């Protein structure tokens, strides 16, 4: 089985072929957006980070920007910097260029303001798109696919249909040699003893407990009950009572494959199969983390109807709630509510999700891409803004 994608110089294969306009600091976002809006075939990545943070977070932001630039869905990259930020733009440029990708940069304070930077960046981006447009998609083996898993705006249907069905789809991809990444560590709290049973070895098992403890301690450090934040107000309206209940439904999306390794936020896995990545559950940070880790297609299950997509990784929405499917039909790609009604098995629904993954990886547009609801992005940082 194969999918139609774009091979990059380092052998990775993208499902899309964009020129990425990446802002290196919150203060350069406007220029990045303006350039991307002027040039067809580009996408922009903006965020709220990159300066006045602790060294731990500056490294986190730098590494994540490198990861995003390396994502195979980007043919080439234009970095947009203000010039005085803490992020080391030379390092970002050097590391992305190492993949063999074309990387250029513009520095607003050196060029002389926004207007000149937008003009210069637009001209550079136009040439990059011209170059990117020459690349044709070709058929590649399925083991080149990197799938990201996500659930959001969950209700009690999430744990009954879409999450276990996504688990089936993830297992099929892993069995065929592909890579599947899950994060959302907050939504393992209360289910870590089950997740740990899926660890491929003791080291992985230990790391799963470590990450969950770290996340729970962060939540507890503010001295309040996690409920209301997790599960969210919407989750509670959807019938989810505690974080434990939410977690037990959420972990089903990782399927039955063994967890091969556990990584820090945004880090590219150095092996195939099912892997776990540190991340909170919130959409902008999680989707960005998956993209930085190299996910080229994401499946996002939802109960109450989460519309978010990501700028350069297609996000497939799957719901098991018929009301949501009807009400948010312009956002939901797949309906697995027949599972809830006993009209379809979880395995059958899982196969449908897998088939959609292959179609979308090969160019079929998701509803988020068509509607342009693709701006859920930010970098997960751990320390204060200083």
């Amino acid at each position, binding site marked *: 089985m194969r999918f139609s994608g774009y091979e990059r110089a380092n052998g990775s294969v993208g499902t899309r072929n964009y020129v990425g306009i990446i802002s290196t600091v919150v203060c350069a976002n406007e220029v990045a957006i303006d350039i991307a809006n002027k040039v067809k075939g580009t996408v922009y990545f903006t965020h709220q980070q990159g300066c006045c943070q602790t060294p731990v977070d500056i490294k986190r932001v730098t590494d994540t920007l490198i990861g995003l630039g390396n994502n195979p869905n980007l043919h080439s990259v234009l970095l947009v910097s203000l010039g005085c930020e803490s992020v080391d733009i030379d390092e970002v440029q050097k590391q992305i260029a190492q993949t063999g990708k074309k990387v250029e940069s513009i520095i607003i304070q050196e060029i002389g303001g926004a207007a000149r930077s937008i003009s210069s960046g637009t001209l550079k981006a136009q040439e990059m798109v011209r170059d990117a447009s020459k690349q044709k998609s070709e058929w590649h083996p399925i083991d080149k696919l990197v799938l990201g898993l996500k659930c959001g705006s969950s*209700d009690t249907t999430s744990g009954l249909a879409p999450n276990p069905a996504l688990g089936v789809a993830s297992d099929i991809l892993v069995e065929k040699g592909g890579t599947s990444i899950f994060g959302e560590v907050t939504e393992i*709290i209360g289910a870590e003893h089950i997740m740990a049973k899926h660890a491929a070895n003791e080291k992985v098992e230990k790391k799963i407990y470590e990450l969950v403890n770290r996340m729970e301690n962060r*939540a507890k450090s503010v001295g309040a009950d996690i409920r209301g934040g997790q599960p969210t107000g919407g989750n509670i309206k959807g019938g989810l009572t505690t974080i434990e209940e939410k977690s037990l439904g959420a972990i089903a999306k990782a399927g039955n494959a063994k967890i091969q390794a556990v990584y820090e936020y945004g880090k590219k896995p150095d092996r195939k199969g099912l892997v776990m990545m540190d991340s909170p559950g919130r959409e902008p940070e999680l989707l960005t983390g998956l993209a930085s880790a190299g996910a080229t297609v994401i499946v996002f299950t939802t109960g109450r109807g989460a519309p978010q997509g990501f700028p350069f990784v297609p996000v497939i929405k799957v719901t098991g709630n018929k009301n949501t499917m009807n009400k948010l039909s312009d956002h939901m790609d797949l309906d697995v509510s027949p599972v809830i009604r006993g009209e379809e098995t979880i395995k059958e629904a899982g196969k449908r999700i897998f088939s959609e993954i292959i179609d979308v990886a090969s160019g079929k547009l998701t509803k988020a891409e068509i509607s342009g609801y693709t701006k859920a992005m930010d970098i997960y940082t751990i320390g204060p803004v200083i």
Partner: protein
Amino acid sequence: MKIDALLINSKDNVATALRDIDANESVTVGENKKKKSISVKEKIPFGHKFATKTIKKDGNIYKYGEIIGKATKSIPEGYYAHIHNIESLRGRGDLERKLK
């Protein structure tokens, strides 16, 4: 026979409503091939839970065969089970603050 609510694991003491259930309705709760009838005492919205047996105060709440929290007051069979009578055992920074 169609089921109105789902019991996921035989250890569970709460069932998930698969449709909006009215107060004082007798409903069919399904668990795999097994089915049983329960008289539901309160209105239960779609996707929400009710006790399938009486749960004592401080008793564990089971769903998926796992503990999802504990009862803050007694929940008699057929009554609505949600945040008004169940608390989480995890992420409780509020409890740790009280201990300090």
